[in-house]
């Protein structure tokens, strides 16, 4: 057994000014990697990743084409933050793993990796309320298991490598179709170097009673994680997928750039829940989009608490009649953080409806941004969109921005967008203090109240977790 060295075991300063627990994942263990693509990005990096995964030639071709697209595309800094220019793609490690085959039981997982996930409480959660878990450690899943009862229903829950190798007839058809390689610079990067992530197929009519979960862990410094997830819910199927993520806080920045594609066929329902709690030096640049066919429903629940810069706009293409898309988004931006989040709703059939509710909290010098697109093209009728964005600013130097874009054609559709910016009312804090609460408790209550109607819609375990994360202790920061 390899010796385990704890590099940075103790949680960093609890940041008493803001008191939000963004440090739960701030530890790392030394791990010896059997596979390492080295530092920097080139065709060789891509070929290395493809060869250790023993991929079919078409996948390597797909990757190399994507790499070219990535080099060709400019940084989107004409609308996005200039902070993106601080990413040095040649200083990142693109592939690190101990092996390509995930273990089916926690006992088989190497101790150094297992210790990480135990500390994060993953095996415990799996026993309690999950139908299946995949735990990704840097580039590959270290553990992947699905409960027998779910597997017997024909549900497939594997990582991307396995999915493409063992079930090409199911996954190849949709892979890269919802989010084409050239969608944006970072989806192209992901397409070139992707590794890990979940491929899920739920057969017609199967309703997966408990959520499937993936946990993403970055352990190595200067590492880039590029998982790829594809979820297909066949006709009338239902599935809830949850993902969590953490990384230790290194002195240099880390990149996480995932691509997540969802396909909800006729009458299917997919709910995708993210609680993003990366360390605040992670660039989190993620492309997430789903296609909802006739009568299908896709719901993104997206909570962004960690990272240095998050740019993520979960989208739904409403392709079939009466399809429904929803994005519920909570973002919390602390000192040194920029949560640039939002939603994208593309209506492409009659009588489709979409709903976006975004709430953001900016603390200290944190900056939260809502960016949205609602598109209702020509000759559709009965399409409706509702968008609500509320921003809460805690300190005098907190910042929030709202940049929606709404395009409507024709007179048979309706959209409404509303946004507001406010602070925690002094009256409210005063009232609670007069009832014996401390200022910090009052503030915490007020902030939790602000997100309560959204948090209520989450599965219980997650809403409890979220409340804990947003347990504010803000002595003296009011006014």
């Amino acid at each position, binding site marked *: 057994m390899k010796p385990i060295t704890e590099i940075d075991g103790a949680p960093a300063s609890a940041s008493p000014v803001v008191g939000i627990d963004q440090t739960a994942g701030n530890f790392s263990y030394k791990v010896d990697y059997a596979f390492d693509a080295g530092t920097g990005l080139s065709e060789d990096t891509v070929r290395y990743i493809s060869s250790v995964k023993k991929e079919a030639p078409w996948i390597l071709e797909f990757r190399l084409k994507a790499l070219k697209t990535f080099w060709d595309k400019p940084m989107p800094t004409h609308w996005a933050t200039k902070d993106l220019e601080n990413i040095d793609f040649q200083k990142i490690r693109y592939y690190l793993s101990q092996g390509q085959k995930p273990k089916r039981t926690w006992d088989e997982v190497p101790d150094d990796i297992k210790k990480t996930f135990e500390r994060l409480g993953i095996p415990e959660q799996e026993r309690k309320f999950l139908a299946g878990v995949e735990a990704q450690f840097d580039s590959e899943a270290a553990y992947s298991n699905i409960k027998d009862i779910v597997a017997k229903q024909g549900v497939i829950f594997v990582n991307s490598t396995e999915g493409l190798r063992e079930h090409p007839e199911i996954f190849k058809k949709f892979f890269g179709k919802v989010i084409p390689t050239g969608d944006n610079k970072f989806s192209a990067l992901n397409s070139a170097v992707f590794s890990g992530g979940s491929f899920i197929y739920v057969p017609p009519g199967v309703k997966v009673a408990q959520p499937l979960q993936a946990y993403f862990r970055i352990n190595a410094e200067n590492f880039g994680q590029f998982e790829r997830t594809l979820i297909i819910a066949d006709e009338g199927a239902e599935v809830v997928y949850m993902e969590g993520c953490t990384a230790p806080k290194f002195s240099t920045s880390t990149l996480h750039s995932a691509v997540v594609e969802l396909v909800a066929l006729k009458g299917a329902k997919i709910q995708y829940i993210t609680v993003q709690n990366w360390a605040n030096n992670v660039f989190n640049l993620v492309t997430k989009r789903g296609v909802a066919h006739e009568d299908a429903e896709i719901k993104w629940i997206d909570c962004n608490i960690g990272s240095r810069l998050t740019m993520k706009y979960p989208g739904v293409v409403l392709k079939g009649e009466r399809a429904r898309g929803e994005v519920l988004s909570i973002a919390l931006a602390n000192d040194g953080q920029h949560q640039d989040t939002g939603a994208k709703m593309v209506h492409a059939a009659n009588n489709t409806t979409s709903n976006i509710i975004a709430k953001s909290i900016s603390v200290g010098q944190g900056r939260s941004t809502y960016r949205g697109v609602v598109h209702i093209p020509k000759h559709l009728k009965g399409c409706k969109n509702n968008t609500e964005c509320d921003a809460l600013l805690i300190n*005098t130097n907190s910042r929030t921005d709202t940049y929606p*874009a709404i395009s409507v054609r024709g007179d*048979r559709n309706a959209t409404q967008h509303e946004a507001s910016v406010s602070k925690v009312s002094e009256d409210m804090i005063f009232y609670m203090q007069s009832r014996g609460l401390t200022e910090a408790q009052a503030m915490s209550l007020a902030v939790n109240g602000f997100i309560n109607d959204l948090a209520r819609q989450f599965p219980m375990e997650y809403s409890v977790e979220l409340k804990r994360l947003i347990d504010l202790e803000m002595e003296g920061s009011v006014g």
Partner: protein
Amino acid sequence: MASLTSHSATTVGAFTAEVFAAHLARVQHLPAWWLDRKRAAYDRFAALPLPKRTDEGWRFSNLSGLSLAGYKLAEPINHQQVTKQDLGAPGAGTLLLANHQLVYAEPLAAKFTQQGVIFTTLQEALLKHSDLVRPHLLAQPSKLGSAKFVALHEAFLENGAFIYVPRNVTVDLPLGVFHYASGTGTALFPHTLVVAEENAKVTVADFFRSSTGAGAQFACGGNDLYAGHGAQVTYLAMQDWSRETLSFQFNATVARRDTRVLSINLHAGARQARHESFSQLQAPGAHSEMLALTIAHGTQEFDQRTLQIHQAPNTSSNLLYKNALLDQAKTIFSGLIVVDPDAQKTDAYQSNRNLMLSDEAEANSLPGLEIQANDVRCTHGATSARIDAEQEFYLESRGINPTQAQELLVFGFFEEVLGKIENSQLHDSLAEIIREKFKA
């Protein structure tokens, strides 16, 4: 100057260095500082590229419609071609400029001139009141994407109107300025500069029209509104250029302490019209109200970009842009409220309402906020929908025929803005422009 000819024709279009030289020759008598600024502006215009697809400030805009080719400088016209019937409501004074020439004026009453009020052409103001004009004329930066076209406006600005109201003076009736473009291919660069000193009060109405059968024209106009401490400025602009015209209008408003600035823009004419409005609330108590009505017909495109910057505490602003869309018309509204870090107690509102009256119309809304202070009240909203079926049903149930019912409801939609005009004659003349447009 020789180097300027090297700029490719595609970015300067008809406005080549030779044409600029011809324009300068016409205004040689104006002060040297102004001519220097014009030369610098021409260099900027020629050096800047045309908008590109990736420019955020031009998102959704039809860039191919922005070609500057095929236009010519306004030629002198026969005074008789313009009749006084073109004038609308009587007021405290009127100027009628046709192809930049003053062709008719109803001067200010003596009671105003004695108090020091100035109402004259921009050329005369540059000659006689250079010190009053210089600090305010095109003094604000261009922040909404049209730096190139603002430079073009400054370079070729030939004439316009200048209104100066000294401190504590109230001009109770509106001042009217008519900008008239005659002749096919004419390029017009109208400008209105309003300077209201401390506690002054004034209402100015700008009318923009083309001669009948004018065909394609190019209009690149601007207005600067300066409201000193405690001043109240009301500004109305009625844009009714020919339906083939490419139009730009640039507004810059500066609101000092305890001011009230109300601007109302009515957009009816042009093939493609871009309007940029930039309001700066510079001192506590400043209040700016930005209202606009657009009736978009046929294949017209109205592209409205606004920026309201709150630079001081306790300022407020209210923006309401209402668009009625018919046929294959297209509108773009892009607004941004910026609250600077120290501008606590800001109260800002921004709203864009699109009334869809056709199944082929297209409305784009980009309402934005950038807030850097926490003790603020900022909200915005954007809606797009057709006429409320219940309201329509109610009117019809009362015996009103569907066409009339629709007209009533559309007027109801506009009245929210029109109702802000205190002067009833101005209110009526705006309502009349809207009615005519609906008949057409």
